[in-house]
């Protein structure tokens, strides 16, 4: 069964109508002290502006004796006000500087050792996310999953030009500079979806280089990770495809227990449950797999198959993602095929070319992509 498709209006979408609003929303200790710093600074700066505006207005419009008008003179050489104003400003600035430095110490490093380390690599114009090492290693793209309540270390690299990683409601941003590995930490204290974006001009599609951070309970996160570590089950004739579409899958929320608990399909179970329609879709998905190996495997990896391309996102668990194209389209079957055929009209200049597909090709490839759960 295809996995749930998370829509943009998911109930756990933190931030609602302004998902990047970090000034009013912070969901973790990597950004909360900064939130308060921002309020204090904004309040003081606004007060200064109001005060200066008031002083200026009074200075301009205060009453002066009519006899004095237009007469050039120097009635008061008062440096006193400059002294007082400057002294006050200095005290306030020094106080603010000290406060800012304490916040820097607080958010500059995690309070305790990071529970998890994730490597994020910026590409034009998508995000490669690498978890783990050795045999447990897996890659995904454009969507990070993290467990709630623990600091997570993110290592930041770039494959081409300078990008910047930013999840506004969780932490500040850090540049991803080719040749240099930068690092930052983040932590989400509540489960949900947090949106991120590239914030360093990186070329034509800098505007469309977004990503998601999904914070899950430790159990859900462990289940997600375990599922990700498995390769894709190939739709070969030996193992029946498990891609019967189910109508009630459509709006499954983020941390759904039944996904975690769902066992891997065994050949017997599937052979029993597959009606005759599964054979047709199985044929399509096998044809689609061949098409994929021919046209897509040069750039994309599907672990568990022969596709080992490294130029584009890992597609092993494509259906697990909320969005396509680094935050551009929702991940539906129609969008998936449309993306392949017309990527340049959605994201002109993207490194992926439009792939010409006949109607039959579309059906085949679509069926195969539907198996990448």
């Amino acid at each position, binding site marked *: 069964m295809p996995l749930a498709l998370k829509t*943009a209006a998911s109930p756990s979408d933190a931030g609602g109508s302004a998902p990047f609003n970090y000034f009013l929303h912070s969901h973790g200790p990597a950004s909360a002290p900064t939130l308060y710093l921002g309020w204090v600074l904004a309040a003081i700066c606004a007060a200064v502006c109001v005060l*200066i505006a008031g*002083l200026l207005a009074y200075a301009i419009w205060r009453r002066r004796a009519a006899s004095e008008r237009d007469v050039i003179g120097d009635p008061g050489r008062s440096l006193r006000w400059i002294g007082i104003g400057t002294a006050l400003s200095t005290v306030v600035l020094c106080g603010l500087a000290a406060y800012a430095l304490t916040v820097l110490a607080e958010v500059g490093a995690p309070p305790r050792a990071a529970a998890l380390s994730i490597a994020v690599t910026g590409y034009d114009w998508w995000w490669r996310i690498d978890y783990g090492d050795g045999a447990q290693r897996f890659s995904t793209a454009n969507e990070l999953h993290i467990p709630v309540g623990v600091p997570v270390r993110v290592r930041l690299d770039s494959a081409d030009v300078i990008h910047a990683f930013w999840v506004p409601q969780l932490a500040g941003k850090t540049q991803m500079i080719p040749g240099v590995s930068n690092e930052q930490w983040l932590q989400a204290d509540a489960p949900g979806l947090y949106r991120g974006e590239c914030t360093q*001009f990186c070329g034509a599609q800098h*505007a469309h280089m977004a990503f998601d951070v999904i914070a899950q309970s430790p159990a859900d996160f462990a289940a997600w990770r375990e599922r990700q570590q498995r390769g894709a089950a190939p739709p070969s004739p030996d193992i029946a495809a498990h891609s019967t579409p189910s109508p009630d899958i459509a709006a499954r929320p983020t941390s759904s227990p039944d996904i975690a608990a769902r066992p891997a399909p065994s050949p017997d179970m599937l052979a029993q449950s597959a009606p005759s329609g599964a054979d047709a879709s199985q044929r399509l998905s096998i044809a689609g797999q061949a098409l994929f190996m021919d046209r897509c495997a040069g750039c994309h990896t599907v672990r568990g198959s022969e596709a080992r391309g490294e130029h584009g996102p890992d597609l092993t668990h494509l259906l697990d993602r909320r969005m396509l194209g680094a935050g551009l389209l929702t991940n539906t079957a129609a969008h998936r095929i449309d993306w392949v055929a017309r990527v340049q009209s959605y994201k002109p200049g993207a490194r992926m070319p439009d792939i010409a597909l006949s109607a039959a090709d579309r059906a085949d490839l679509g069926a195969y992509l539907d198996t990448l759960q």
Partner: protein
Amino acid sequence: MPTSPSADRNAPALMRVPERGRADAALKRRLQAIWEAPPGWRGFLSTVDHKTIGLRYLVTAFIFLLLGGVEALLMRVQLAGPNGTLLTPEQYNQLFTMHGVTMIFLYSLPMLSGFSNYLWPLLIGSRDMAFPRLNALSYWVFLFAGLLLYASFSLGAGPDAGWFNYVPFSGREFSPGPNADVYAMGMLLLGVSTTVGSVNFIVTLFRMRAPGMSINRVPILVWGTLTASVANLLAIPAVSLAFFLLWMDRQVGTHFFDVAAGGKPLLWQHLFWIFGHPWVYAVVLPAMGIVSDGLPTFCRRPLVGYSAVALSTMATMLLGFEVWIHHMFATGLPNLALSFFGAASMVISIPSAVTVFAWIATIWLGKPVFKTPFLFFAGFVLLFVMGGVSGVMTAAVPLDWQLNETYFVVAHLHYVLLGINVFPVIGGIHYWFPKFSGRMMHERLGAWSFWVMFIGFNIGFFPMHISGLLGMPRRIYTYAADSGWSTANLVTTLGSFLFAFGILMFIANVVWSWRRGAVAGDNPWQAPTLEWSIPSPPPAYNFAVIPSIESRYPLWEDMLDETPQRSELDEGLLLTQGRETIGSTALDALPDVILKMPGDAYSPFYLALFMTGALVGLLLHAWWLAAAMTLACAASLVCWMWPSASLLQRLPIVVDTEAGGA
């Protein structure tokens, strides 16, 4: 008076006691004939008159302001709503890059150079800048650099990697077209223009002041431009080097920034910003000087805290060299290093606070005259503070990790650049227009254009703080409907168009007033400084007699009556044997030497042309052209430097000091 102690009557006079006296009509005619440029094309190409050069700078820079403004308005239409389709990403990237390049390099400093070029000799009582031909060169090179950039832009080959042009994106691999090379060549030319201009200002200040105009009597505009000029000399080499290294990487095969071969992208950022930050102070300090000199006129009193303001100008510039890392807080540098630069970036506001309070005190303790220049100067004080405090917010390192590269920074930089450069410039044009043209600008239209500009500016740029706080990144050609940025962007677009309309009103005022404004006398504002003691517009020779100065506000001495001494404006050194002016000592301005000034020359024009030609040759890979142009540059320099008996200044001439000395 005997003119030469030498027995050989044909030998040039190396020592001479110059004539003193009053100027009559015959003398003025003689001076005019000596100083005025030839008519027609000959004069157009060869003039070294600082007033002509100043006006050229003002007009050319203003045209670039308008071009940059059109680029901005196009972007604002694209961003007025989500998923805009007016512009492709490539078009948008060229537009935002050219907008930045134009405003920062082709408008903001050249505009201030225009004011300084025109006014400095008039403010300090001199007949010209120290190096008149160098002055002409700096203008021609600036013009040709701008033409090169815009010609390339019109062919789609203009810079398109952002005005800070980060590597590796602007390197050969990711920007294979000529765009970054065009930017590099343009910047090399502009570096030459600014450097020679800075040299000119510094030497002029320390050499050409009228007798008695000691260093603590010069107007704040002079302090501002002097400080900016010294800073430019130190900062421009960094950016010229950066662009040269980039050009080498791109065209010659070096690997300064090439990551695969061990190059360092961060090197670019350091080199660029160690220039870029001092540069932004260079483009605001002279404008602050305009306000410091203009406010006293419209408050009917001297500036409160002149020394504090002059010292703050220098302190700000000095600190401006110690904060460049605040453009790089998110690059992963160690937090300890960031702490120093963050603290310095907060502390740099303190000298600015001194100046703000000085201005407010000047208004408070003065009697405001509600003319258009005053409106701009007073409005500027508020915009200065608003821009300054948003800068304080970005100086807090952890907060900058959120604010950096969002529209909050765009709001901040526009408040400081428009607020601290454009508003004083427009006010300054209203203020000195009578001196430039002999006519007054239309007062009512001026006031209206101020209010439209002020309100439009705030409606346009204040919401950018909001869209920045809502997480909108910079340099995106469009955004999604669910990002929450649509309203702020729409309001910004509307405000920008209103502001643009105010600029149009101002242009209409200038155009109308140039021919039809009320005739202004020498000093329509009853202003205190020297430029108002000569006719409007000034004659080619500026001062018929070299004045002797006794205070900061020579024309107000009777009214202020601070000391019994009075400046002498009607009687003094005449200096009519060719183009001459007085050179004085660096601090106290005691008369020291008669300076023989060069006349009009074509060599600056040709040198600028050939320099540009050489770089165009490099751009086109036409090596023969580059070589030929370089030879032509050498030839122009030879013509320029060719010794001339009339410029002989080998021995300092002892000037009769009894009338002009302390």
